[in-house]
């Protein structure tokens, strides 16, 4: 018989914050995954909302391509506010 598949669990710790990945678990279906996530990852009131995603449904970038994916952004300093000069008199902008 097949084993229970793996699920990734995302928990929102309180309203106003994003869901964050907090770990994974095994479950036969999505209902059970949600129940298990509640029992495993929110035992100490860690959350107000849970997402579960079957791990096999996640498409991940390949670290071998990190050069082409992420390095081109490194020299685009003009995307950051510190790139621009301001006179000292302008305190907040």
């Amino acid at each position, binding site marked *: 018989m*097949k*084993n*229970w598949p793996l699920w990734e669990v995302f928990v929102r710790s309180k309203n106003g914050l994003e869901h964050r990945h907090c*770990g994974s*678990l095994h479950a*036969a279906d999505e209902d059970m995954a949600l129940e298990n996530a509640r029992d495993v990852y929110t035992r100490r009131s860690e959350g107000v909302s849970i997402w579960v995603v079957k791990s096999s449904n996640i498409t*991940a970038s*390949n670290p*071998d391509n990190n050069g082409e994916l992420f390095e081109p952004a490194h020299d685009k300093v003009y995307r950051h506010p510190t790139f621009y000069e301001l006179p000292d008199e302008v305190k907040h902008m």
Partner: protein
Amino acid sequence: MSEEQIRSLERQFDERIARDEKIEPKDWMPEKYRKTHIRQMSQHAHSEIVGMLPEGNWISRAPSLRRKVALLAKVQDEAGHGLYLYSATETLGISREEMYEQLHTGKAKYSSIFNYPTISWADMGAVGWLVDGAAIINQVPLCNTSYGPYARAMIRVCKEESFHQRQGFEIMMKLANGSPEQKDMAQDALNRWWWPSLMMLGPTDAESIHTEQSMKWKLKRKSNDDLRQQFIDQTVPQAELIGLTIPDPDLKWNEERQSYDFGEINWDEFWQVVKGHGPMNKHRMKARVGAWEEGAWVRDAAMAHAEKKQERKQKEAV
């Protein structure tokens, strides 16, 4: 890949770790790194799961409701910690079922301390105070280990475990301050758990394999002997505080070293238990294998139901 390319990759890999960069699941890693991590992390997970048994043994007999809920919550945490650690290990390309298989067939090890029996309520105190105490010493440095998923799991584990040792110490303290019968019970538990707890921190440095490599990969930050000394130095004053005696006639404060000298550990006993001949090895494995095998029909049913549900959903969609 040529051997030279591999060597170059390995050099870069080691440099990344030396710079305190984390390694993540899909990153290239030396095969030995992967294997060593699977071994250590799964062993750690197995220890949590097998470790549920000696304490689980007293849930139904806890002397008060307050103690019962604390113990239940603690043993449940151990299941959670096993789960976090199995999940982290799965990122290295091995399934939980394969790891169970290795545990059940004796191919994988778990902490030997759980092969001792818990024969009195005071053992719940001793296990929490000493065994969790020794475990914390081992675990805290792992929050900073090089493999990302392991480090993250350990941060969670350490945060949750902070109440475990207190729970045990409180039990001991209450007994030590209780009736003569209770105090005897506490002392007896300390007598039985002290030496196995020292052994739990691993063989002496002279006999320990893997250490150098593990240090480099931050799987280990201190040697076994250093950890043991740290454990003794922090625990002896705690025992004194509650009026219990450490069962070691050679234990003596060394002013020069600013540490305790201690007596000889019975390493024959340690190796006997490691090799599977401790008082409870067979019993513990029987319990784990039993739970897994008796649960097979339940796990199968859940999968079968999930598939039927999925099919029904698809039919409805059509």
